């Protein structure tokens, strides 16, 4: 058992040694302070029981006083009568609430450190069509954003490339590990597409840095349509390539086509094994995506979805999920109601559209995820649904609902223990387990804090 970790053994608890918990760091019973120092994510999987805690399972009912057991990287028991395995480390959960780790379904965490410094940005490639660009290979496991994010109870993020039309392949990572491969839950989650749209200008931060609105709207519409056709052509050629490959495989007399890495990357989407994440906010763009995806035969997920509330009937009928990234954005149109994006989630929920809530952030502010969900709850979304929107619903939309997103036996042990409602900014996360490993809750921030609080 490595000693660089904070949950002490059951015997220690029975001896009554107090854990001094403060903002995520703990003094060990022996007295040596583990305060600010960040250690590498090298802990083995542990056997832990959190007992007498409130368990918000998300998948099922809230258990007001129960025990949750983690073993071999999985949740092995959840309930009022769970047995604590011999040798397990025990956390006294009285006054604490246990949640599944939150999941942000649309970030670029790990690909961007400081947006203003180009050398720290690995978010996008040159050119319009890069389906073979893979986010996972560029994820920096030592980005300061990783620990700052998990400090708030977010344990898993989808990390997406940006730029061009087909941006590349998203990846799903746990916020724990010393290499991208250790972090990966799903190395290649699906393709990310910036669906061609009209640029109509508008406000928002740094509006003046964006392209001005087109002078001739008819020309701009034609240009947009040409880009959509070009995109369609890319998939059609990939479909032809796939047919040629299959024909060659079936009949040795048919020549095998030369391997094309771009088309290869599109095949899983044509086989509907992986989804395509289409970034689209306006109603017309969302509808265009639905028609486009149906035509080329891929499985779409809308990312953005600011106008999704206008398209609930279509989204529901076609069973297309939405990852909302704009809950806290300013309304796009001057005459929009002030709360139009705050209540977008509630409207989708009422209409029965599958959705989850994301920050859409490129890294530093993914930690705000609970507040995006909380704001949706302040504006009509049932608080339980709000929590689900950043846990189980996100997992389901990303295709890992059977492995993540709730406190259920057999799921990956991504578990956070908090001193209150996870969506409230005042709540502190006391412990986090990722893949059954205790995640240190120190960060660049706590480290600087510990250093400079001494300089009075």
């Amino acid at each position: 058992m490595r000693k660089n970790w904070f949950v002490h053994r059951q015997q220690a608890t029975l001896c009554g040694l107090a854990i001094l918990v403060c903002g995520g760091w703990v003094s060990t019973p022996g007295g040596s302070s583990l305060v600010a120092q960040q250690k590498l994510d090298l802990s083995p999987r542990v056997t832990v029981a959190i007992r007498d805690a409130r368990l918000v399972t998300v998948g099922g009912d809230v258990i007001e006083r129960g025990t949750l057991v983690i073993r071999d990287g999985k949740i092995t028991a959840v309930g009022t009568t769970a047995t604590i395995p011999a040798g397990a480390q025990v956390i006294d959960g009285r006054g604490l609430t246990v949640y599944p780790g939150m999941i942000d379904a649309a970030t670029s965490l790990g690909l961007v450190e400081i947006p203003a410094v180009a050398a720290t940005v690995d978010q996008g490639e040159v050119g319009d069509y890069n389906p073979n660009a893979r986010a996972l290979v560029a994820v920096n496991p030592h980005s300061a954003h990783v620990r700052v994010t998990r400090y708030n109870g977010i344990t898993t993020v989808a990390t997406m490339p940006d730029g061009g039309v087909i941006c590349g392949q998203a990846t799903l990572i746990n916020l724990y590990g010393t290499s991208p491969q250790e972090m990966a839950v799903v190395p290649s989650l699906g393709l990310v597409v910036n669906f061609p749209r009209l640029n109509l200008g508008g406000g928002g931060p740094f509006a003046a840095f964006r392209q001005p609105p087109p002078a001739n709207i008819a020309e701009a519409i034609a240009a947009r349509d040409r880009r959509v056709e070009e995109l369609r052509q890319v998939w059609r050629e990939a479909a032809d390539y796939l047919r040629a490959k299959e024909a060659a495989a079936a009949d040795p007399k048919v020549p095998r086509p030369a391997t094309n890495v771009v088309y290869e990357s599109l095949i899983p989407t044509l086989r509907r094994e992986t989804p395509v994440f289409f970034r689209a906010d306006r109603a017309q763009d969302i509808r265009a995506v639905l028609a486009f995806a149906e035509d080329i035969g891929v499985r779409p997920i809308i990312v953005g979805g600011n106008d999704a509330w206008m398209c609930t009937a279509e989204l529901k009928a076609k069973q297309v999920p939405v990852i909302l990234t704009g809950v806290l954005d300013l309304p796009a149109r001057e005459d929009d109601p002030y709360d139009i994006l705050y209540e977008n989630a509630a409207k989708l929920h009422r209409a029965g559209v599958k959705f989850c809530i994301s920050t859409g952030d490129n890294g530093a502010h993914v930690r705000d995820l609970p507040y995006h969900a909380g704001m949706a709850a302040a504006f009509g979304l049932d608080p339980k649904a709000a929590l689900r929107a950043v846990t189980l619903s996100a997992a389901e939309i990303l295709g890992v609902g059977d492995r993540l997103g709730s406190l259920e036996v057999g799921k990956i042990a991504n578990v956070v223990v908090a001193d209150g409602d996870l969506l409230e900014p005042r709540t502190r996360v006391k412990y986090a387990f990722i893949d059954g490993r205790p995640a240190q809750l120190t960060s660049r921030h706590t480290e600087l804090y510990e250093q400079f609080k001494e300089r009075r």
Partner: protein
Amino acid sequence: MRSCFSLWCFVFASLFGALLSTTELQAQQNTKVTLIKHATLLTVTQGDLENTDLLIENGKIAKIGRGLSAPSGARIIDATGKYVLPGIIDCHSHSMLDAVNEGSLSVTSMCRIRDVLNPNDVDLYRALAGGVTTLNLLHGSANAIGGQNQVVKIKYGRPIEEFLFPDAPPGIKFALGENPKRSNFRVPGQTQRYPNSRMGVEEIIRDAFVRAQDYKRQWDDYRAARARNENVPPPRRDLQLEPLVEVLEGKRYVHAHCYRAEEILMLMNLAEEFGFRVRTLQHVLEGYKIAREIARHRAGASAFADFWSYKVEAYDAIPHDAALMMRAGVLVSLNSDDDGRARRLNMEAARVMKYGDLTENEALRLITINPAIQLGIDRRVGSLEVGKDADLAIWTAHPLSVYARVETTFVDGEIFFDRQADLAQREALAKERAELEAAEVNRPQGSGAPPPVPAGRRPAYRLGDSCMQTTKE
């Protein structure tokens, strides 16, 4: 041109419609007396008062107590289970500005923010809906010495004159670091402007104050000569140096955008050398590294809760910054610097509370009385006290909860935002919009080309304008 005409018909008609309904609404709602009953009053300066009434008369808080009665005809609001918080004061805003930076020079103390105010900026209404009632409107941060500020009350839809905060001491924006260096705003082919380093930023501020001292001396000499009845001509007025003389005389507040510890020390040392005090350090992300020096200088600090990592000078920002400065004895406020964030400054306060172990009252002070003191307007606003301006908002839950929502916002005792009224007029507005869109004049032209699309907001600046004027902060 016809399609253009139809567009403007649409725009004007919608604007006119919106204005009309707002005015009607206000006429119904704005009586001189309002009684808010059974609320939890978060007075900020006098504790939390449960199940208490608050009487508003003639724009002021007239009474606070239990079982208050109101004259007939008064508006009575039952706020059982609800919370009343003083109007939030945003100590750093660029809302309602038609231009943010005069970025062609690095000393533009002659420019005035009050000359570019747009009272119809819809983001003002959105801020009211977040319980904000007062803004410190600042010039951008492109220049070491920027323009003069303007403190306003958000009287959305009223003439500009009604926005200007009465008796607010004048101020001026300074900026240090990457923005006046233009580090992140370089355009290929465009000449780089002085200063280019933190050395140059210091030098250009020093140069300006040396000139201001000389200029002040000319006027002092002139006035002395006049006092001796000598017939001497007055010095030529210098509009750039006049505001800096006011700074030297302690009559104008310096609000300085800053990030790194060294540049903060630089400015405080320079100010002490020239005999003035920096009123507020804005953003002050590394303030926690030199909190004791800031406390000693008696500068206020107006910070972000946890905004970080967007540029190099924001990479050492920590969410404990505000709390550490507070603990060192610095007067700290939080600000938005952004129309989106302005709508949830209460959430910013809640975050600082978590990282810094603040009490609820300490957290609420960050967005109410502390910025009021920093702006020199605490005599009128920033707390619920009898005699103060009735600038306040009714919240559905404790404003430090993420589930809280603003029901009603008052400025000078008048309602400028009311959620129920807002909801009530939505259907009518949607119908009106649909009618306008369907109107013959707004239909696409015979050629099949649809009408041109309106530019979103009033376009104050465009890409390629001198010095890329979007450096807000």
